[in-house]
C-alpha cells in the first residue's frame, strides 16, 4: 500500500483533455520554412555572388535584433528563437535587388518587425505579411534604389536574351514587348534562375524544391499556390498579353510569392474555400498589375491586397457545422 500513500501525498496533474499531443510546434514549422528557403538562398549566391548572402544576413540579423529590442523594451517575453523573425528577414532580402545599398535591408526589417508585426500584437496578429509590407514601404520611400541595383546573373543577363543589360525579365517585357522572351532558351533560364531579378525570386526550380518539402511535411497547403499560379496561367491565356503562360509563371516573383508569402498562415484565410478565393484573387490582381499597372510586377501588391481582404473572406466562407 506504499503506492497509495505516494500518490496521496504527491500532487497529480489535473487538466482538461486531451492528454496526448502531436509533436508539432510553431518553432518547428517556422524553422522548416527557413530550411525550405535555403536552396534559393544558395542559388542566389551562385547566380549573383556573395553580396546576396550579405544582404540576407543583414536582413535576418536586423529583423531578429529589432524584434528582441522591441520585446525587451515593451517588457514581454523574448521569443526570437521561434524563427518567425528569421523568416521575415529572409523573405524581405529575397524581395530586394542584389546590389541594393546595405542600409536598405536594415530599415526594411525594422519596419517589418516593429511597425507591421509587433505594433499590431506580435506573431499571429499582424494583418499583412511583414516582409511584403516592408518591401512596399521601401518601394514608395526609395523607388530609385528599389528598382535598380539589378545584377547580371553568372552567365550575363538572361542567357539566350541579351538585348539589354541589367534589368528583370518582366521589366524587359513591359518595356520592349519582345515576344522572343517566349522562346525556350529564355524560359529554361527563367526556371533555372539564370536571370536578373530580386535575390530570392529568380530560381523557380530551387524554390520549388523547398516548396515541395513544405508540402510533403504538411506545413503549407497546396490550395493557395495552385489557385494563384493556376489563375495566372489561365489569365495569361485569355487576357491580351504577348507572353506565354510559361513566361508569366517563371519570370517574376510568382513562385516565391505563391508558395512562401501568400501561404503565410497569419495573413491568409483559414478555411479551405477561403484559401481558393484568396489564391484566385492574388492571381487576378497580379495579372492586372502586370498588364495594365504602373509596375512591371504585381505579386507583392496582389498578396498585400488579398491580406487585407482576408478577414472578409473568412467571414463569408465559414463552413457549415456537421449535420447543419
Amino acid at each position: 500500500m506504499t503506492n497509495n500513500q505516494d500518490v496521496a501525498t504527491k500532487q497529480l496533474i489535473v487538466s482538461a483533455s486531451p492528454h496526448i499531443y502531436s509533436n508539432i510546434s510553431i518553432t518547428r514549422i517556422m524553422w522548416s520554412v527557413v530550411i525550405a528557403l535555403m536552396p534559393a538562398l544558395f542559388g542566389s549566391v551562385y547566380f549573383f555572388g556573395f553580396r546576396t548572402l550579405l544582404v540576407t544576413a543583414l536582413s535576418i540579423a536586423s529583423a531578429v535584433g529589432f524584434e528582441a529590442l522591441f520585446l525587451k523594451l515593451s517588457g514581454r517575453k523574448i521569443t526570437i528563437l521561434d524563427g518567425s523573425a528569421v523568416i521575415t528577414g529572409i523573405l524581405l532580402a529575397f524581395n530586394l535587388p542584389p546590389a541594393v545599398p546595405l542600409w536598405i535591408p536594415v530599415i526594411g526589417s525594422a519596419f517589418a518587425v516593429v511597425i507591421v508585426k509587433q505594433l499590431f500584437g506580435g506573431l499571429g496578429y499582424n494583418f499583412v505579411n511583414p516582409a511584403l509590407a516592408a518591401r512596399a514601404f521601401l518601394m514608395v520611400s526609395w523607388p530609385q534604389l528599389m528598382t535598380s541595383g539589378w545584377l547580371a546573373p553568372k552567365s550575363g543577363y538572361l542567357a539566350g536574351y541579351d538585348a539589354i543589360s541589367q534589368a528583370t525579365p518582366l521589366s524587359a517585357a513591359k518595356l520592349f514587348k519582345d515576344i522572343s522572351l517566349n522562346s525556350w532558351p529564355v524560359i529554361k533560364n527563367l526556371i533555372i534562375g539564370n536571370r536578373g531579378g530580386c535575390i530570392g525570386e529568380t530560381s523557380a526550380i530551387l524554390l520549388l524544391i523547398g516548396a515541395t518539402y513544405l508540402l510533403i511535411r504538411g506545413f503549407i497547403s497546396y490550395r493557395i499556390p495552385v489557385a494563384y499560379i493556376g489563375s495566372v496561367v489561365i489569365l495569361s491565356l485569355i487576357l491580351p498579353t504577348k507572353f506565354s503562360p510559361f513566361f508569366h509563371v517563371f519570370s517574376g516573383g510568382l513562385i516565391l510569392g505563391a508558395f512562401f508569402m501568400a501561404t503565410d498562415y497569419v495573413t491568409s484565410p483559414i478555411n479551405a474555400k477561403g484559401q481558393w478565393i484568396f489564391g484566385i484573387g492574388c492571381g487576378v490582381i497580379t495579372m492586372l498589375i502586370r498588364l495594365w499597372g504602373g509596375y512591371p510586377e504585381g505579386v507583392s501588391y496582389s498578396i498585400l491586397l488579398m491580406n487585407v481582404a482576408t478577414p472578409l473572406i473568412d467571414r463569408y466562407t465559414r463552413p457549415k457545422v456537421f449535420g447543419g
Partner: protein
Amino acid sequence: MLKLNAETLPISRFRGGIYPRDNKERTAHKASEKAPIPQKVWLPLIQNTGLPAKIIVSIGDKVKVGTKIAEAQGNISVPVHASISGKVTDISEYNHPILPTRILTCVIESDQKDSWENNIKERDYNAFSNEELVTIIRDAGIVGLGGGAFPTHVKITPSLEKPIDTLIINGCECEPYLTADHRLMLEKSNEIAVGVKIIAKICDVKRIIIAIENNKLDAIEMMKRTIPQNDGYSVIALKTSYPQGAEKQLIKTLLNRLVPAKGLPMDVGTLVHNVATCYAVYEACRFNKPLVERLITLTGSGIKEPKNLWVRLGTPLSDVVNFCNGYTEKPAKIIFGGPMMGITQYNDEMPITKGTSGVIVLTNKEIIIQEEGPCIRCGRCIETCPMSLLPCEINNFVKKRDFAKAKSYNVLDCIECGSCAYGCPAKIKLVHAFKFAKNEIRLL
C-alpha cells in the same frame, strides 16, 4: 493477413480526424484477467447520463452480488446493484471520478463470500417478448459501456416516429491505449453475437453492421467467423483514425448519413451500440445478471504490468493498480477513460464505474506541459475538426468571454474529441476553453 474486399469496405469517410500513435501494444495481446474481489466498493448512485438512482437500502443491510441497492428515477435513469456481497456501511456523498460535484455513494464492505443473488441463473431468453427484454435490460442497470453511459433501454425502445433500419455495433475503440473492447471481441465473440441479435430483434432492424478499426485485424477475423455475413449482418473493417468511434462520424463513414446538428442517430434511422454493451445485454437476458462488473484496460507507462481486467464496479483504482504490481514510478496523471477524452483524477481512490472503459497512468516523461503560444491561424484545428467547427475562432470568443458569439459558432456541437488541441502547434488548450464555454452557456 485479412484481405479487405469490396463488401467489407465502408462507403464514405468522415471529415477531419487525426492519427495519433495508438500505444495499444502494451495490452492488446494480453488475455483478460479477473481482478480480485475488493474489500470495499464505493458505488456512486449516478453512473449514467441522466438522473441518479434512488437508494433503497440502509446502512447495516446485508447485500449479495446483484442485489438492487438503488432504483431508477424517471425514464433516463438506471438502477444500481451491489457488486460484492457484504454489508452496507455508509451512504453519503463522495467525490466522483467524472462529475465535478460530490455524489451520494453507497459503500459496501465485503463478507469475503461472494454470494450472488439466487435468481441469477441461466434461462431461455427467447421466451421473452420485446417489451420484457427492454425491461430486463433496464433492470440490469445497463448503460452504454463505450464511455457515454447513456441508459441502453432508452436507446432501444422503439420509436414510432423514427423507425430504425440499421444497427451499428461499435467495435472501433479509437481511443489510443485502450484494448478492452478488442479483448472482449476476441474472447467473447459468441456472447456479443447473441447480444447483438437480441438488440436487433427488439429494434426490428434489417441491417446490422459490426464496425471495427483495422488495427484489430484479429478481432475483425474473429467477429467475421462468429457472425455469418448474411441475413443483413456484415462486419466492416474501418481505416484506423480518431475519432472513428464517435457516433456521428461512424454513421457518416458506414452509411454516408449525416446526423443533424443537435440531433440523434435515430433521426437518420440508425442506432449505435458498443460491443461491451452487447455483451452486458447478453448477460442480462441469458443469466438475469445485472451490470456489476466490466472489462477495463489499466495501462500507461506508469503501470508496472498493464492488463485487461474484469473489475467489479465500485472497486477503488488503487486496488486494481496493486493487482497490476503497482506504479513504475510516481504517476503524473491518472486518467479515467482514454487519453483523448478521459478525465484526470486528483488521487487513485476513485471507484471504477459503469462508464470507465479504461484507466491510464502517465508518468512525467509522457507529459509535456507547454505554455500556450499565440494562434498563428495555421488552420490545423479546422482541418481536423470532425464536426466542421472553427476551433481557433471559437477560442478567441471564449477568451473575450463572448459566449453568445461562441454559441453562434456552434460550440455546443463540439464533441470534445480533442483533435484540435492534439494538433495545435501553439498548444492552445482548445478543449478546455470549449468545456468552459459550454458550461457557461448552460448557466446563462
